[in-house]
């Protein structure tokens, strides 16, 4: 993979000015001929991480495929806010069928393209609920058959479209409409949830990556890499949801970055089930930097902070740092790191 070690700190956000990069490394969004695949005018909330992630991801797909792409969307916020009939924000061929079948529908589109002799990239996309819960059977089947589909999960850690209920991706202690902030253990219990990208890796598919709207350049690059590979590919993108997380819309990027920089959401790539790259943490932050700006975790920080719970979350972040070798002082992760 093309890479260039750059450390520019002038903006305080690790932003790298495009003009400092070679042409092919420049952001898709920085070009005037970007596709605007998810065009303006849609009805996402202010500061919606999912809208941002999708815009970057699908535009990157469109650039990498020279516009020869078709998207299949699961039911969820992304589908609802983008296509209130008769309007549509999508500037590419786009199909929505159901909540739990996007991977299978995408696999079918891909089969049709193959039999009709068309070279078209097919992407599937959905929220965490549509991906790791109700669509998981279809996703696993698509992986197992190694269907020629790039599937992108926009993980905002709950069923947002139906009013913020818990999903299999909701983190411990998070309050949702079905894991209320009451009782002995307020919010989501520890020990639940599933690690979808690791499960994707366990299928041995050609490409798995995690990405975040905190690092849109990295996101674009991973999408571009994935488009260049045939077979089943999976990208899991962490996308804050101001409405569901109870966070300031202006802080979407900052919160996403805190998830990455604390180690709670490690960024990595895997090929054929083996980890090949993990992005180092630039400046480690405590998990409280991530938790505190979100109302869903407010119960941890009351008059008597729930130190035990915060420590357990910190331990999860620390374990990730250890497992993926996220700090500079660590060796690169052993190439055989597998679940």
């Amino acid at each position, binding site marked *: 993979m093309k890479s260039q070690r750059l450390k520019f700190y002038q903006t305080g956000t690790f932003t790298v000015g495009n003009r400092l990069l070679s042409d092919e490394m420049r952001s898709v969004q920085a070009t005037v001929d970007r596709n605007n695949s998810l065009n303006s005018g849609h009805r996402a909330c202010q500061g919606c991480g999912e809208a941002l992630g999708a815009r970057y991801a699908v535009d990157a797909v469109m650039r990498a495929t020279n*516009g*020869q*792409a*078709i998207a*299949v*969307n699961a039911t969820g916020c992304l*589908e*609802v806010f983008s*296509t*209130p*009939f*008769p309007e*549509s924000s*999508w*500037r*590419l*061929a*786009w*199909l*929505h*069928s*159901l909540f*739990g*079948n996007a991977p*299978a*529908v*995408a*696999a*079918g*589109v*891909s*089969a*049709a*393209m*193959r*039999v*009709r002799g068309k070279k*078209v990239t097919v992407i599937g996309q959905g929220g965490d609920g549509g991906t790791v819960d109700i669509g998981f*059977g*279809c996703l*696993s*089947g698509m992986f*197992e*058959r190694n269907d020629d589909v790039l599937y992108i999960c926009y993980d905002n850690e709950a069923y947002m479209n139906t009013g913020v209920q818990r999903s299999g991706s909701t983190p411990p202690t998070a309050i949702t409409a079905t894991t209320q902030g009451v009782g002995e253990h307020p919010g989501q219990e520890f020990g639940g949830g599933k690690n979808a990208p690791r499960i994707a890796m366990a299928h041995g598919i050609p490409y798995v990556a995690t990405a975040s709207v905190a690092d849109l350049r990295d996101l674009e690059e991973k999408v571009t890499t994935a488009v260049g590979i045939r077979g089943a590919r999976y990208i899991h993108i962490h996308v804050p949801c101001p409405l569901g997380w109870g966070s300031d819309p202006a802080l979407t990027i900052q919160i996403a970055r805190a998830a990455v920089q604390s180690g709670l959401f490690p960024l990595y790539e895997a090929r054929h089930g083996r980890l090949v790259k993990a992005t180092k943490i630039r400046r480690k932050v405590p998990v409280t930097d991530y938790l505190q700006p979100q109302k869903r975790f407010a119960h941890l920080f009351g008059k008597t902070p729930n130190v035990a719970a915060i420590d357990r979350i910190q331990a999860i972040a620390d374990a990730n740092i250890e497992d993926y070798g996220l700090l500079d002082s660590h060796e690169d992760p052993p190439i055989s790191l597998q679940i």
Partner: protein
Amino acid sequence: MSTFMPGRKQVEGSHAVAEAIALSRPQVISCYPITPQTHIVEGLSAMVKSGALSPCEFMNVESEFAALSALIGASAAGARTYTATSSQGLLFMAEAVYNASGLGLPIVMTIGNRAIGAPINIWNDHSDSMALRDSGWIQLHAESNQEALDLHIQAFKLAEQLSCPVMVCMDGFILTHAYEEVDMPSQEQVDAFLPPFVPQQVLDPSDPITIGAMVGPDAYMEVRYLLHHKHLQAVEVIENLRKEFKRHFGRDSGGLVSSYRADDAETLVLAMGSINGTIREAVDEMRDEGHRIGSVKLCSYRPFPLEALREALKGAKRVIILEKNLATGLGGILASNTRMALRGLNTPVNTIIAGLGGRPIPKKSVVRAFRQIETGEVEEPHFLDMNWPAIHEAINNRGLVKRRESEAQRVLRSVSGVEVAKPVR
């Protein structure tokens, strides 16, 4: 060039259908195994693997829900698509069944009709396709393997003409597993009848459209009406296809309804599927005894041909519906629908619920029931060959036997003649 052998031959129903599907040149097939439809897709899978059916993608998916979902994608992307299922499989894909018709995708699906559990049962009745009767799919019922084969070829043309999905229903085991002689058309004949698929809407990167947008109260009713309208149109298209098919293949197959010895009949029996053969024999026997009885076969259950059916039945003094399903607490579903076709006519309609879960429907039982209905001695609905002692025993024991045994097991024991356990208190 055809890889298949046209002409008359003795084959299993499933293989006859598989060959007819192959002759229809599907481009994407996906499937999931369930008895009794499995032999069809196994046959197609072998044809794709050997290259006899090409170009075609065969997808072995992880569930029926995925099978139909994959076809939704493939059909929207411009491919001719096919799958088959039965019973639990059809219910498992139910959400996608409605979705396919809502999106107007001309998918063709065989239903090897089978009962639904619990209690789990693999044998034939019509509960499965009936459960999805208002899903917006066209539902055609085959009487014989020849008709099943022919209906599949018609189904692609019908589906694609209307941009509406079609189920071809064939009785599980009775047809799917029966070896019968069929006349297999040639590839050239099928090609002349069935042109390549030209989708009415398609996912195409060079002309991008949004398919499957959210529709609110302002337009949803109109969208549903348009699907209703397709079914109203289908009534005409189905009859036209019957004529066109006859011109091409020289056989009468499909259509809305077909009558048998009905002209001067006082009693007309209406039924769907393979049981029509038995009914015609019963009609012949009773005609010989001087009964003025005839029968009407319903091929197109959805669209439900109100006018054609009324026309076919209106001369009768009484109508008997023999059907293989049960709307619990109500009676027969086909009977309810037929009463709508006969509204205003005051024709008495009797229902015979028969053959649930594969219970054989012998001619002598059928004749007995017809005679009893003619003399007015039966309850409505009439359950053909029901073991009433077993039912009464089960009802009497209800609430007494609390553990260890389900009601189904109890009935089975009592039917099999083994002593029923003493009530446990």
